[in-house]
């Protein structure tokens, strides 16, 4: 059985409520989705709760999956939307535009140093550093840098102004770079 057929078999089984198929899908996507949820939350326990909630939504809506994108992309999108909704629901997204503060982070000579640090660190440690960012910064950094959203898309998804998204990303970038450099200093 090739991969596409196997995936279709799992999807059909999940739609029918087959527990075995549900477990197969859960195990197949768990690691990737846990990494995604960790990036949006402050710690692993919170990420696991978010992941559970996301998987419930996946199983409840799997019959709507039309195969227009890969299953992993579709599930990732549900997880991202779930993360955004949970953060909004918990009122942890306090996004204030920094446009007027006039201190956008710009690329400079310290960037190369921070890039080297990223290269040296394992991904789990990089996620830990991202988790230390304030929720708003973290969310926008994830959406922009890793999920590939544009500022316009972020503004629509979070219900904020495009400028706010830009300023938050700038601040997030600045803080992350600072954390990376501090990590190198302390290492």
């Amino acid at each position, binding site marked *: 059985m090739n991969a596409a057929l196997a995936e279709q078999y799992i999807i059909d089984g999940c739609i029918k409520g087959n527990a075995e198929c549900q477990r197969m899908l859960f195990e197949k996507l768990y690691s990737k989705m846990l990494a995604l949820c960790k990036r949006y939350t402050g710690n692993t326990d919170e990420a696991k709760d978010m992941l559970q909630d996301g998987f419930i939504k996946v199983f409840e809506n799997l019959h709507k999956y039309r195969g227009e994108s890969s299953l992993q992309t579709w599930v990732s999108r549900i997880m991202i939307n779930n993360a955004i909704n949970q953060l909004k629901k918990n009122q942890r997204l306090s996004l204030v535009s920094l446009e007027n503060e006039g201190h956008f982070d710009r690329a400079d000579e310290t960037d190369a140093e921070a890039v080297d640090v990223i290269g040296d660190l394992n991904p789990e440690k990089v996620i830990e550093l991202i988790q230390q960012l304030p929720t708003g910064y973290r969310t926008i950094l994830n959406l922009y840098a*890793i999920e590939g959203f544009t500022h316009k898309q972020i503004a629509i998804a979070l219900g904020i102004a495009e400028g706010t998204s830009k300023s938050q990303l700038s601040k997030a970038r600045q803080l992350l770079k600072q954390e990376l450099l501090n990590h190198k200093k302390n290492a």
Partner: protein
Amino acid sequence: MHNEQKDILLDRLSAKLADYESTSPTDADWNSFAHSYNKRKRNAIWFKMALFLLGLVAVFAVTAIIFNNQQANNGQELQKQEAPVGNDSKEVDPKAPVKADQDIQNPILIQTKLTKELSSDDLKGNLLSDKQETKSTENLKQEKMTTNKSVYNSQSTNNQQQVGDEEYTAFNEELAAEQQQIVTHTQQPTILAPHKMAVIGYRKKDWQPLLQTIPIPRDSTKYDIKTQPKSKFFIESGALFTSTPHLKGIYPSNMGYNGLLVQAGYRIAPKWHIVSGIQWGKLISYDRYEESQTESRTTIARVDTTLKYHSGYNRIMMNIDTVTHTTTNNVQNSYSLNTERVWLAIPILAQFELGNNKRFIGLSAGVVSTQISSTTNTLVVNETGGQQRVSNNTKEWLFAPTVGVFGYHRIYKQVGAVAGASYLTYLPNQLLNHNHSFQLSAGLRVQF
């Protein structure tokens, strides 16, 4: 891709994390997820059931309001139709002076009026307000006036007064007889219309229960609530939800089934009914995610035949049902295990119904004896390395006391709403994990 200026720091971050996979799931992770997923599914089912019940209550409330309005309108129509000839007023005011013939028809009005009159010092103008008053009323008035006069005056009564005394005595006896007919225990009679009253209680004469709006006939001895059903045939159809007990060792566990109920009743003799019907439903099951977890999608077909005997006025009935309840739990796992079960239930119930053809409420109680025949098929590896199918048959008897409540309310002509709820619990046994079961049903009945 972004149109914004390329940012090497963010690009590197993306490359590092985009395809990163965290730790693999453990059994505990899966079990934790399965637990919360099942809990959510169960909650969703309960929520739907609660909505269904709320809807049911709302439908009944609206029906009751419509019915009461119809009753009130009917009462007004009746008043207009039965208003005395020559009376120009369109509506009858219960507090207005009432003619003697109306008084006789309505004991409550008689009592109210008479009490008022007897307590009044001035007897003038009450019964004389109508010029067409009857002779007996005239005598009554004279008698009452005489009662209030001195002994000296009473000595001067003539023969005509003597006739009045006799009539008054006779009238009093008639009134007392009327009053004794109805003794209300929970609620005072309410006058809905001059010739109708709502009664909840007992008729003292023979202690028969009453729960309805009854017409008050001119002849008080004809209080007759026809309890025997007039219809020869009825058909009922509606929706039902039944929770089922959980069988040990069967995964996924069945929570119950939603389905449809169609049944028909036929009066084979004045006191005997035969009711037969089918229930069809889809099992609602949830997986418990054990090692032997499997999928189970089952339909239930249930044939129910009841012989009902109406013992008389109170409708104490003995039901003898045979329920062929075929549940096929096709449980298939990696060992190709397959279990089929057939339930044969024999309920013996006593039912008590209170009401009439228009509406009634009933209670039932009894015992349900159930035989569960199980056939378990397994595939075993034989000596030659091939697989062999082995069947194992067992039979178990279970006993369960049960109680239920049900009701009928006529909506329009021969069409009425029916609803019921019942609960049963199996006595301790080795077969079931969960011994309780309840059923809710609601639908329509058409009588012919």
